[in-house]
């Protein structure tokens, strides 16, 4: 007699039911992505359900934490969560961690580093809770359909492969197969349907607006001039543009030049902004490799444009994956909170030690790209960006080639090729020391007190070694923010 092989019914109607169904227990490791950026409602809602079920001592492996996750403090205080992995710490949560609110140090990783860690056993994920703007009843999910479509599910996809079990959290359940599948039904164990996975306004607000500040324009122009004059940016180059205001403006200048000459970038990698979406439409970038969409318009682009590829974070930057896309980068433009005489870069802490940023893909991109440019103003109001020694090393100096600020360009001594090229074109450049001396002459150097406290966070390099530590501090700092 034939036995009915029924397709499992994975759908539950509350997060508490999901927590129960999936078998979440004390001490497990749960993961979340941050594709909804400041509009995310899922992470805290899941923890709320977890707490209601009396489950405790979880390890939270988030791809990153935003300001909207400040509420995590409650769950840390009551022991629901005892360990946190993230790419960044900011706002009240950052302050809480810095002031010693957690017993276990937070582990901060780059996106590529996290991809490695969840796969090589360093951080095995028990349950991945993956917010998806659309799911079908089989468990196929995407981030490009539904009211809260956000674009690429790059971090979520990899977690769905690596986690022991996966819960899709969605507010848009389709009774029929989705036309576009990012996460496969074969990786989905449970589908939790909720009222809303995120706030659409905050999602949109999170989309990076091009800075209107004229200094960014100056720096961007310098970058574009440098790239074009030296021939580093040419027909067929590949590029990663960071998410900062300067990067967005660089796109505008490169566009003019590329369209004029009929050139095209072979692809742009990483965080996809509105400017890059336009570039794809306009044809001067051939393809986008999207691990994270910064503009909800990416959702439509992914659906419609075969050259807009959604890639998972393993394909993006996992150092254990030789086929990762950052390995193919020609040019990278990244930002900095601080850069020092050894070219080390800090994107995590302010000069006063306040946690205010995220590592993101910075060290992954910097190490792998053939050319890495860091952009920042020399001085932000009263604070020098070029310092003697950065407060926190996030990206080691060996991976940085050029620094462009509003007082000029600095080129690493080792890059004889670039220096020669610039000299040939009559473009001026300085040493990092000269820029440091300029900054010091203008605003002095910041008084960095030596903290002797215990480490409250570890910054790992891509391969899992501790690169720097962030120490406990009483000062709340941030008066000027």
């Amino acid at each position, binding site marked *: 007699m034939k036995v009915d092989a029924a397709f499992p019914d994975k759908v539950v109607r509350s997060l508490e039911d999901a927590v129960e169904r999936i078998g979440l227990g004390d001490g497990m490791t749960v993961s979340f992505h941050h594709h909804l950026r400041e509009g995310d409602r899922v992470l805290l809602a899941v923890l709320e359900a977890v707490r209601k079920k009396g489950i405790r001592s979880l390890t939270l492996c988030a791809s990153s934490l935003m300001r909207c996750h400040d509420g995590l403090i409650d769950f840390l205080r009551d022991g629901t969560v005892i360990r946190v992995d993230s790419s960044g710490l900011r706002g009240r949560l950052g302050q809480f961690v810095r002031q010693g609110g957690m017993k276990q140090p937070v582990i901060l990783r780059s996106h590529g580093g996290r991809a490695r860690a969840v796969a090589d056993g360093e951080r095995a994920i028990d349950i991945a809770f993956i917010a998806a703007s659309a799911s079908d009843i089989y468990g196929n999910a995407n981030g490009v359909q539904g009211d809260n479509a956000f674009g690429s599910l790059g971090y979520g996809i990899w977690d769905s492969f690596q986690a022991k079990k996966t819960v899709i959290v969605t507010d848009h359940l389709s009774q029929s197969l989705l036309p576009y599948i990012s996460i496969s039904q074969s990786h989905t164990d449970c589908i939790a349907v909720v009222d809303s996975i995120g706030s659409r306004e905050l999602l949109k607000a999170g989309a990076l607006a091009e800075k209107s500040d004229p200094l960014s324009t100056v720096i961007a122009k310098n970058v574009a001039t440098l790239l074009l004059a030296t021939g580093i940016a040419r027909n067929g180059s590949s590029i990663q543009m960071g998410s900062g205001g300067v990067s967005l403006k660089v796109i505008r200048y490169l566009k003019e030049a590329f369209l004029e000459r009929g050139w095209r970038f072979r692809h742009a990698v990483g965080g996809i902004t509105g400017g890059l979406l336009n570039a794809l439409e306009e044809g001067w970038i051939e393809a986008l490799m999207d691990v994270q969409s910064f503009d909800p318009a990416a959702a439509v682009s992914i659906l419609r444009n075969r050259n807009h590829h959604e890639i998972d974070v393993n394909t993006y930057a996992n150092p254990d994956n030789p086929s990762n896309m950052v390995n193919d980068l020609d040019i990278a433009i990244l930002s900095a909170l601080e850069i020092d005489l050894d070219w080390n870069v800090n994107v995590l802490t302010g000069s006063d030690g306040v946690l205010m940023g995220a590592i993101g893909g910075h060290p992954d991109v910097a190490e792998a790209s053939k050319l890495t440019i860091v952009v920042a103003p020399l001085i932000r109001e009263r604070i020098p960006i070029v310092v003697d020694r950065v407060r926190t090393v996030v990206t080691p100096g060996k991976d940085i080639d050029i620094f462009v600020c509003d007082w000029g360009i600095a080129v690493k001594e080792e890059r004889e090729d670039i220096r020669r090229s610039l000299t040939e074109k009559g473009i001026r450049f300085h040493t990092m020391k000269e820029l440091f001396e300029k900054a010091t002459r203008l605003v*002095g150097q*910041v*008084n960095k007190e030596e903290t002797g406290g215990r480490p409250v966070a570890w910054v790992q390099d891509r391969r899992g070694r501790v690169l720097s530590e962030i120490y406990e501090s009483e*000062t709340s700092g941030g*008066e000027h923010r």
Partner: protein
Amino acid sequence: MSEVFRSGTEERGDILIQIEPLANQPFAACENQIEVRSRYESLFGEHLRRLVDRLIAESGLKGYRIFASDSGAWDYTIKARFESCLRALNRSNT
């Protein structure tokens, strides 16, 4: 009614400095009352205080209340605003 001599603003990059004579105190002729605050207290507070102290010492002011509210002024601005207050004060005294 003593006059307050003021220079600068609380806009970013500027410093507001106020100098006024201390009234009706027996030892007013010897002491100054100094209050300094800054947006960048943890980073530059100490430097700012030292600079203000030095400027006061150089000016020879005695028996005044000096108030400074800093919004990230560079040193040349601090010196200029202080000098402006001094000049206004001296002009009023002559």
